[in-house]
């Protein structure tokens, strides 16, 4: 089996599992309790907070643990919106290819009277900082731009965008779910006010993540109840999950540079191999992308059947086709970079990691070539394209 869907989720690190089991066995107390085993859990929690903060260049007090990336995105955006609204600022800038955790939250705010500007992400899947600057108005409450896109992996000029927001005095949030643990992220150097992260994207457990909020920015609760997380996120803390996430994060950061090097090299090899398939195109800038992300469109075929046949060959991947999303439209990300429906349906995302071997890369290339050729052999679109009755798009 070749697991090439690391953007969907990653395999949990054995060290993280070990840590979680240890915490569940020995530190099962409630961090809010006064007695020993509770205080031990509290210690574990605060140690995690310190370590997570250190990794991204933050202060421990600026870290709120959440149930994952979605919750962190929701809380960051809602909080900034509430702060803005108090000053009569009801304009938010984001991009057309954000994760739904961001886009759906923005939709909700739009229903409450906020005006949302979604910036163009261009054909290469990159936001232009000057366009952020030009979009900022007197009443802009927030700029929220993802660090790296989850489908096409493009890494945004976050530092530049952050600098613009600082200069203009506008809050800046970034969904760094796909970036943390894979590329360098430092909230100070990158001028970030709020940042969302999710543990299961860097070999930590699922259902846990964190939100970084710069000191002085007041959060709005999404979950009301007890006074956990400085009163900003109720609910008995997921101590084992948080401790496991922390171990996984430290592990990822320790190996970040070497992994970046080796995974990028394999990615480039995979890209080069897939490019040999006629009438295909890579989605997103070829270099300014996450080390493990490869995303292609193949003309004349549909993504779900491609995935199913790859699965039969032991390769797990994903696609932005409509048929995999359960809706009639293909991925909003592919549409945002200007792929027309016809080819957006034929997309394939392969997200590899440090464990992917060169032999596996060769195997993926061979299998994708075979399956694309097979599906094209009975595709009516492909027949028309080859016969010249239709013009090739790619």
């Amino acid at each position: 089996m070749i697991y090439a869907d690391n953007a969907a989720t990653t395999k949990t690190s054995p060290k993280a599992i070990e840590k979680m089991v240890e915490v569940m066995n020995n530190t099962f107390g409630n961090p809010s309790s006064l007695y020993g085993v509770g205080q031990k859990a509290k210690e574990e929690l605060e140690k995690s907070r310190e370590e997570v903060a250190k990794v991204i260049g933050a202060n421990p007090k600026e870290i709120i643990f959440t149930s994952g990336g979605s919750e962190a995105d929701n809380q960051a955006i809602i909080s900034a919106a509430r702060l803005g609204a108090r000053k009569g600022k009801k304009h938010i800038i984001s991009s057309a290819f954000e994760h739904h955790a961001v886009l759906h939250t923005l939709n909700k705010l739009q229903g409450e009277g906020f005006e949302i500007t979604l910036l163009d992400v261009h054909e290469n899947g990159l936001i232009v900082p000057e366009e952020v600057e030009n979009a900022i108005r007197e009443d802009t409450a927030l700029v929220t731009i993802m660090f790296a896109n989850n489908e096409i992996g493009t890494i945004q000029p976050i530092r530049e965008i952050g600098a613009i927001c600082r200069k203009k005095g506008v809050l800046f949030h970034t969904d760094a779910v796909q970036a943390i643990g894979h590329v360098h992220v430092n909230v100070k150097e990158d001028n970030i006010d709020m940042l969302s992260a999710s543990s299961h994207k860097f070999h930590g457990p699922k259902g846990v993540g964190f939100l970084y909020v710069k000191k002085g920015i007041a959060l709005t609760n999404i979950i009301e109840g007890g006074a956990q997380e400085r009163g900003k996120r109720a609910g008995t803390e997921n101590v084992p999950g948080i401790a496991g996430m922390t171990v996984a994060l430290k592990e990822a950061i320790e190996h970040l540079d070497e992994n970046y090097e080796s995974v990028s090299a394999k990615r480039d090899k995979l890209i080069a191999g897939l490019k040999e398939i006629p009438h295909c195109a890579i989605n997103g800038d070829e270099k300014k992308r996450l080390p493990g992300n490869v995303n292609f469109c193949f003309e004349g075929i549909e993504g779900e059947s491609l995935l199913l046949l790859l699965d039969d060959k032991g390769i797990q991947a994903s696609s932005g086709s409509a048929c995999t999303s359960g809706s009639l439209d293909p991925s909003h990300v592919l549409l945002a970079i200007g792929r027309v429906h016809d080819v957006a349906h034929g997309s394939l995302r392969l997200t590899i990691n440090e464990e992917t071997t060169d032999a596996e890369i060769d195997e993926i290339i061979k299998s994708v070539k075979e399956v694309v050729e097979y599906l094209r052999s009975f595709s009516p679109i492909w027949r028309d394209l080859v016969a010249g009755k239709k013009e090739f798009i790619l």
Partner: protein
Amino acid sequence: MALYSEKVMDHFRNPRNVGVIEDANGIGEVGNAKCGDIMKMYLKIEDDIIKDVKFETFGCGSAIASSSMATELIKGQPVSEAMKLTNAAVAEALDGLPDYKMHCSVLAEEAIKSALEDYNKRQEN
């Protein structure tokens, strides 16, 4: 839990009647690339009997399986019987489809009917 029934996967992995009929006397194409599924059906009808049927499909697993099953259901049938093919029959023969994939079986029914209409039109001329 698997997304599709064993039957769907069987027809998807080993589609029956794939290809073209060069001297088809009824051809129908339905769907469009925008929605993500296109089916093209080729019929060879002799003495009002569907002697041969072939298909080409651009689409998801259930679209390919539905095309395959639809061809199986009408092959060797009189035209009048083939006209009665319903998407429900296609889906049932596949041991069911997920709700949001039912449109694939609808497309298969439409593709067959479109090819039969083409045949009828050609007969009139």
